[in-house]
């Protein structure tokens, strides 16, 4: 890992000077903690991760369990918090209940797991594939670079949501209408994954459409780094291209990649919510925030709390990632180095 050195002057009479090296990643982390937006983003995300991890402990009810016959409560009842003046005769539901008499707060809390899982897995996959493609295109160059980047340009020529809608629908048509494939998936995958295959198709579509952004970032960084002297030196002593790429070139591409990926996770959560809202991602009764919004959209005027809270949850999560991404951008900016 690249380090900085600074010469500390010693008192007169000392022999020579000592050098003090410092890991740049530690410098960046310290700078991140001095960024207001970075700290705000980390607080928001830490809170969300905590909520997601402790969902079974925090949620007062099973998110998928209808309370018909269990409590004396009507469907789409607004929030009732006893501490805020709601009658103690009524059952307490901090964010009300939905059209199937399920506790909204419990569903929101479990929905945090889905959103964070979707964001990290989708963008993680896109980063891995995009890094390989971008690094290969940037390092090899020539017609390989042209072909790969033209394919990326084709994907970027479409509006993001349009392409994700089309790919998700295509995957549904291919697999759900094909009994042989459907049976094969059912036997190969865990049951809960098979039941969520709508969400899996959406994640796959978003990952594919996100790949070009990361391929471009990596490619442009590789192009600028591969002509550096230390890369030429590594080549001249006989290192193989793959080793040079992974040991010397790619580590220097990580800072911009981390920033773009962090911002991308927020985008992926928004896109998944949009696809679920349109009926293409998560299917009921999955407590995915976009799907919750879609189910109760027609009750907007009579039960606005059923639209308000899931939307606030989405906004808060995406805001956390955006703030963190902004903070990382400033913390990892080489122009601000020391």
């Amino acid at each position, binding site marked *: 890992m690249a380090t900085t050195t600074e010469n500390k002057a010693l008192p007169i009479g000392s022999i020579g000077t000592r050098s003090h090296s410092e890991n740049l990643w530690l410098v960046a982390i310290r700078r991140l903690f001095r960024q207001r937006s970075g700290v705000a983003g980390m607080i928001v995300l830490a809170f969300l991760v905590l909520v997601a991890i402790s969902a079974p402990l925090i949620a007062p009810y099973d998110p998928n369990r209808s309370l018909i016959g269990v409590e004396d409560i009507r469907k789409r009842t607004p929030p009732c918090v006893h501490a805020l003046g709601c009658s103690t005769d009524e059952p307490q539901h901090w964010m009300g209940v939905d059209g199937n008499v399920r506790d909204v707060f419990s569903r929101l809390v479990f929905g945090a797991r889905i959103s964070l899982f979707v964001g990290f897995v989708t963008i993680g996959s896109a980063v891995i594939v995009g890094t390989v493609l971008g690094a290969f295109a940037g390092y090899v160059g020539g017609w390989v670079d042209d072909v790969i980047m*033209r394919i990326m340009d084709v994907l970027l020529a*479409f509006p993001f949501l349009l392409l994700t809608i089309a790919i998700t629908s*295509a995957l549904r048509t291919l697999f759900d209408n094909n009994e042989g494939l459907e049976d094969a998936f059912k036997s190969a995958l865990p049951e809960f994954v098979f039941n969520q295959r709508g969400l899996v198709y959406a994640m796959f579509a978003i990952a594919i459409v996100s790949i070009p952004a990361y391929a471009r970032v990596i490619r442009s960084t590789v192009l600028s780094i591969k002509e550096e002297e230390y890369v030429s030196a590594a080549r001249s002593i006989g290192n193989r291209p793959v080793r040079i790429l992974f040991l010397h070139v790619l580590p220097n591409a990580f800072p911009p990649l981390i920033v773009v990926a962090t911002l991308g996770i927020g985008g992926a959560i928004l896109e998944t*919510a*949009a696809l679920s809202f349109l009926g293409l991602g998560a299917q009921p009764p999955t407590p995915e925030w976009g799907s919750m919004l879609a189910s109760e959209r027609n009750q907007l005027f009579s039960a*606005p709390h059923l639209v308000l809270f899931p939307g606030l949850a989405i*906004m808060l999560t995406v805001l956390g990632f955006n703030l963190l991404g902004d903070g990382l951008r400033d913390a990892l900016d080489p122009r601000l180095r020391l």
Partner: protein
Amino acid sequence: MYKYAIRRILHALPVLFGVLVLAFILGRIVPGNPCKAILGEKATVEVCEKFDRDHGLDRPIPIQFLAYVGELARGDFGNSLRFNRSIVQILIERLPMTVELGMAGLLIASIIGIPLGIISAVRHNSAIDLSTMVGANIGVSMPVFWLGLMLAYVFAFLLKDTPFWLPPSGRVSAGVTAVPFYEVYGWEFAGEGVVSNVAEFLSNMFILNSLITLDWEVLRDAITHLILPSVALATIPMAIIARMTRSSMLQVLGLDYVRTARAKGLVDRRVILVHALKNALLPIVTIIGLQLGLVFSGAILTETIFSLSGVGRTMFEAITARDFPIIQGFTVVIATAFILINLVVDLSYAFLDPRIRLD
């Protein structure tokens, strides 16, 4: 400049070809079996074989692709399976709505975003700067569909029976009809051609049409119906434009020539608006042009929420209803428009910034 333009155009051609291939593939995969998608699951093998022969689907895939490209080159996008009407005709009816919505959204985003960005840059690290950037971050994080629903709740429900009420759906109120300008002025076109199609396209942009015909009732009604969807659509681009304007202005305001202008005694407003803004506008103009992708994605959701019959909603319904001629035709048109707009943005950037075209 010409060499740069030719290079960019040649660069766009393989991308356009890739778009045609992808549109063809999507149009074949998404509907599954087109015969069963249209005629129903009970269509027999013999009926489907005849259907495939009639639509050329029994030919080898490369031949089908060549036929598809040939039809596109002739301007024949085929007929919608749901509406049984020409795709071109459906585009002429629906695209104007999306264009109006997109332009209104971008206009609102620019009119609010650019001044906010300038003020933030000039009052760097002040309360205004902080609140603008916090607001921009929140704006970028908001789901468009949620914002649209919340705006509809506030303005169509909570503010009902007040002067601030706004309609939550449709392009115009029931009973209000936008008469095409060519009918108002008695213009006739010989048959269906490019001129009549263009005239019909323009007349389906209700705001433009009512300005031409001086129909103030339709103009007021159309604008009133467009406010909520365009504000919902404008929020994310507005936040991005404000941030870009701020960062671009900060860069320019730190340059020596701005310091010189101030040292010469020029009024601050003149320094900012005349000297700094001109150079800061280049990346801002580019980002506005590149927001079209975001605006179209948002249009799919906004049109669905506000029940507007635009291209976005039609495309989404076609995908879910497996109407593959619409999927193919609209995909090609939308993606081609994007490629062309990106090309224009690139070329205009090179035209405005000599450093780019000499690179």
